[in-house]
């Protein structure tokens, strides 16, 4: 029982990071109908911005200093996301989705190779940007980092939900997602909305990068690949295009992975995550919270 509870905490803190990345996949899919494979590498850049920012923020190692690092990485990644959209995807607006998808893979490889060139390929140790400690609750042990990851991810998901359903920009975003042509007829500037979506999604990935690095203190230019794939699975399982779905999918995947990794079948941890993707694509392609939609031809 204790072990199960402990695994629950472990799984939630891993799932929270998957959820943050999955949100970006799902939001960008919502407006542009393609999977932005470069998203996982924006997550990596977030980790590195945190690494380079950490020695320069005032109050390093305190909650305030940690938050500054987190916000710095979010802003940096938002700018990067907007830049990628402007340079790589906007010229392809109106082109077949496949072209955009291949471009996304290209951008992803560019960021990975560029990261190895700029940051060096060896893993780097990530400093303790937040105060760390252990909390003992009976037989349970968590690190403050685990709780921090769950807390910050939860707060960001709530903030995002409010932004999408309570603001004008949010309404515009939903309008573009439902029908881009009609949205334009209603006087919405689709380009602005899409730019904002990339900024928001990338900021979440940046936050995810820092939180991941706080929890597992080593960063390298390929650190985004595996979490990125898992988050992609999470977005599909939760229902691509659905914000609560992405959050739910992330947590679910984190939990499943943790439970398998803690069992005698730990070898199959990644295999099960991807088997889940196949099962969902076969039997419920719209995901848990997504609505099945007939593709209009």
């Amino acid at each position: 029982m204790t072990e199960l509870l402990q695994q629950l905490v472990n799984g939630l803190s891993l799932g929270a990071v998957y959820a943050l990345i999955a949100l970006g996949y799902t939001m960008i899919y919502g407006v542009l109908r393609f999977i932005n494979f470069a998203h996982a590498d924006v997550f990596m850049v977030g980790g590195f911005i945190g690494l380079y920012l950490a020695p320069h923020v005032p109050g390093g190692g305190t909650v305030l200093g940690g938050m500054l690092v987190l916000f710095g990485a979010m802003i940096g990644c938002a700018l990067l996301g907007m830049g990628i959209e402007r340079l790589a995807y906007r010229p392809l607006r109106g082109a077949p989705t496949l072209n955009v998808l291949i471009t996304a893979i290209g951008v992803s490889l560019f960021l990975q190779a560029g990261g190895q060139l700029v940051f060096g390929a060896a893993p780097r140790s990530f400093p303790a940007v937040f105060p760390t400690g252990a909390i003992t609750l009976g037989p349970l042990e968590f690190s403050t980092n685990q709780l921090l990851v769950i807390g910050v991810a939860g707060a960001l998901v709530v903030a995002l939900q409010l932004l999408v359903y309570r603001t004008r920009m949010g309404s515009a975003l939903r309008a573009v997602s439902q029908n881009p042509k009609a949205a334009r007829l209603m006087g919405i500037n689709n380009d602005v909305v899409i730019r904002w979506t990339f900024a928001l999604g990338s900021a979440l990935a940046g936050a995810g990068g820092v939180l991941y690095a706080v929890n597992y203190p080593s960063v390298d230019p390929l650190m985004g690949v595996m979490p990125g794939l898992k988050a992609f699975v999470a977005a599909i399982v939760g229902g691509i295009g659905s914000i609560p779905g992405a959050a739910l999918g992330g947590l679910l995947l984190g939990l499943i992975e943790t439970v398998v990794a803690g069992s005698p079948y730990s070898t199959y941890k990644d295999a099960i995550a991807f088997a889940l993707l196949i099962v969902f694509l076969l039997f419920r392609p719209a995901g848990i919270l997504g609505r099945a939609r007939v593709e209009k031809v």
Partner: protein
Amino acid sequence: MILRVPLVLSALLAFTSAGLRAADTIKVGEIASMTGKEAVFGQSSHKGTLLAVEQINAKGGVLGRQIELVTEDNQSKAGESATVARKLLSRDKVVALLGEVASSRSLEMAPIAQRARIPMISPASTNPKVTEVGDYVFRVCFIDPFQGTVMAKFAKENLKIKRVAVLTSVSSAYSVGLAKYFRERFVADGGEIAIEQRYAEGDKDFKAQLTAIRAAGVEGVFVPGYYTEAALITRQARELGLEVPLFGGDGWEAPQLLEIGGPAVNGTYYSTHYSPESDSPQVKDFVAAFRARWNGETPDAMAALGYDSALVLADALRRAGGTEPAKLRDAIAATKDFSGVTGVTTLGAQRNATKAASIITVKDGKFQFVQSVAP
């Protein structure tokens, strides 16, 4: 047509001058993980190898010719070692290959060297399968059955551990092999493996496996893996309140273990090939030369093995009297009582070296020599 003549001529000239230069030097290929996840290993072994080559060349080279080291980086990636091995053999026409540190990557190079009948010497791959590939593949280090046995004995006799957990990386031949030999010896000595858990290279979250290990109530955890994962595992074990000793093999040896692991790695143990604190005059000379060449850096085991691998090759070249592959192979195979910085190398019938292991611990954020275990 008129335009083409000088082109052809210059190409011909370039070709012959390259051919002439190749005849002047003895080309030796080196494959190392200069970048990527195990960059520390590749850079260390490369620095050791290069130092040895430079020292040999400074003394006039071998057979009156200078050795030219052609180094290729495999980026610590699977598949890349095979590609660069082919390139070194077909384009650079090297007379021998030195490398790799990681067993998985040596296993990629070995069949290519064997098929081309070009001798290959791995400095530090400890998995037995590496030299089983064929009679052209050698190594200058001990093998995992020995290393696994040493750690099992050490855990049992010195750490007084009876119930142990094993956390293996399934995607590394080195880790799987080391775990196997540790398990065999530990169980044969009356110990108990309470739980076995697995992970894959590049994983960062080990809390699930460690939570299961904690629940199994063990007295120690054997982690036969590489330093990045070992550091994260130790850290996460301590965060979960798992305070038992963790120990591993030579894959742990890198400054990154201390850097990423922080205070959590204090009190961990690992076995390795040599200690820079040794009293042997040969080791002292090597450490001094290495520090002078590489900005005061202290050579680790990979550097020492890289150094020895180049020396063993040079010695064999001298005895072979030329670079003819079959003769060179026989000369390497006949290496006997060769005194290097990692001990005395005698290559046995299986083309492996038999050497003593050193056990190192981390104390107050520094590596410290504990004891030497003879084979």
